[in-house]
């Protein structure tokens, strides 16, 4: 467990009487890209809310860098960078002001904040947009700002909840390439939930969540070989069909 960036054990959650997640056990290792695949309503966003402690689990446990998230809440949240499904930027503030607000919520001192904002905006090709209001940016740029913001405090685990939804194909491709570089170069672990199957690459670690249960956790190309399929679409369809039966 101590090697895992995130270790989830027998996690369960329900809204009222309706079970949403049951017996979820997942382990994420450093520097890998995990694609969390599942249809709408599978429990992906609920799982994310449990990881970032917007909700408390009803059973099981979560450990980040070996520490229980409920006992070491501050430590656990400090390791997380989060991009939510809905945009959470303040449209009337500038890009730099949005990032500065996030930095202050992380308790980052002013001098380091300015340096990190410059670094992240440069990395995402947004250095010249720092003083623009977010309202003036297009959807792709806003998403990039959100990822830059999530990386500002140098988290160990980046959570992306359907982060590419609503973006055009070129922007999605560029973003997906960039995110995998973050894993390879910076050693960041990424857990990215999506229902867009074409975003999952053969070298990704694949986690399939169906009806609140983990149906698969394996490297994508190994899973495809084991099931004798050639594409992620075929793999996913096969799992979905067997689940329906």
């Amino acid at each position, binding site marked *: 467990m101590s090697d895992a960036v995130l270790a989830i054990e027998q996690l369960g959650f329900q*809204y009222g009487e309706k079970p949403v997640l049951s017996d979820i056990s997942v382990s994420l290792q450093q520097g890998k890209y995990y694609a969390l695949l599942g249809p*709408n*309503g*599978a*429990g*992906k*966003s*609920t799982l*994310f*809310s449990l990881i*970032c*402690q*917007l*909700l*408390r689990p009803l059973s099981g446990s979560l450990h980040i860098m070996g520490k229980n998230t409920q006992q070491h*809440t*501050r*430590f*656990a*949240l*400090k390791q*997380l960078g*989060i991009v*939510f*499904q*809905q*945009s*959470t*930027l*303040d449209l*009337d*503030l500038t890009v730099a*002001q949005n990032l*500065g*607000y*996030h*930095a*202050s*919520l*992380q*308790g*980052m*001192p*002013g001098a380091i904040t300015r340096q990190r904002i410059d670094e992240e905006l440069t990395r995402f090709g947004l250095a010249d947009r720092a003083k623009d209001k977010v309202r003036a940016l297009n959807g792709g740029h806003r998403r990039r700002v959100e990822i830059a913001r999530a990386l500002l405090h140098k988290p160990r685990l980046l959570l992306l*909840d*359907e982060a590419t939804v609503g973006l055009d194909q070129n922007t999605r491709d560029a973003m997906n390439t960039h995110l995998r570089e973050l894993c390879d170069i910076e050693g960041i672990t990424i857990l990215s*939930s999506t229902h867009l199957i074409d975003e999952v690459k053969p070298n990704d670690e694949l986690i399939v969540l169906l009806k609140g249960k983990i149906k698969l956790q394996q490297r994508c190309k190994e899973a495809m070989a084991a099931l004798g399929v050639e594409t992620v679409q075929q793999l996913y369809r096969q799992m979905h069909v067997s689940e329906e039966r």
Partner: protein
Amino acid sequence: MVYFTCFLGILTRELLRFWQQRSRLISALVRPLLWLVVFAAGFRAALGVAIIPPYETYITYEVYIVPGLAGVIMLFNGMQSSLSMVYDREMGSMKVLLTSPMPRSFLLVSKLLAGAFISTLQVYAFFVIAWILDVQAEPIGYLVVLPALVLTALMLGALGLLLSSFIKQLENFAGVMNFVVFPMFFLSSALYPLWKMQESSEWLYQLCLFNPFTHAVELIRFAMYSQFNAQALAVTLSCTIAFIGLAIWGYDPKRGMVRRKVGG
């Protein structure tokens, strides 16, 4: 230092947002100024004000309602911040605050303090206009009243925060205006002294006494005349602490403030 940095960030954001929405200041001032200029002119003759503490002589109706209108600015501001919390929650931006590694109680109190700071600024802007309109208190009163204003703003902000934790949708907010804001406003000493209310109806008078806003207004009124009202302070302070405690409880993830909001 980390806590101070975080608080400063929250305060800066609230100030920037307030600056971006300057119409908020104008609308916050228009309402009490209408009461002060139009309503007071019409009711001056009808509502004679006897000599009651803290006043030592007969006063005009305009002078009487200034502390109440200061309270009204903060009451509406508290509800406005509640509305913006519900909006932030619906839009998802509340999650940015709630996933900060700082303690949640600290984050919520910081947000309250930032809101109280903005409310107090608005009240002083109102005092300046009232002064220009020749509705004046003793100059020292404007300084002495500062802690009373901050405490009142905190109490009303905390009430707004508490309400926002229970309001499921933005559409439900109209109910807050009908069932919280207007009753608190009219069942208080903001517009008329309570003895007038007692003359008309004993049970309405008792309701006014039960209303924490009445005590907040009296705290402001006495402080503006450099006097201290212990009962008003005790009620306002107790309600502030209770509302803050309940609001923090309302935003506890065990209760699942965002339960209805996650989906997926």
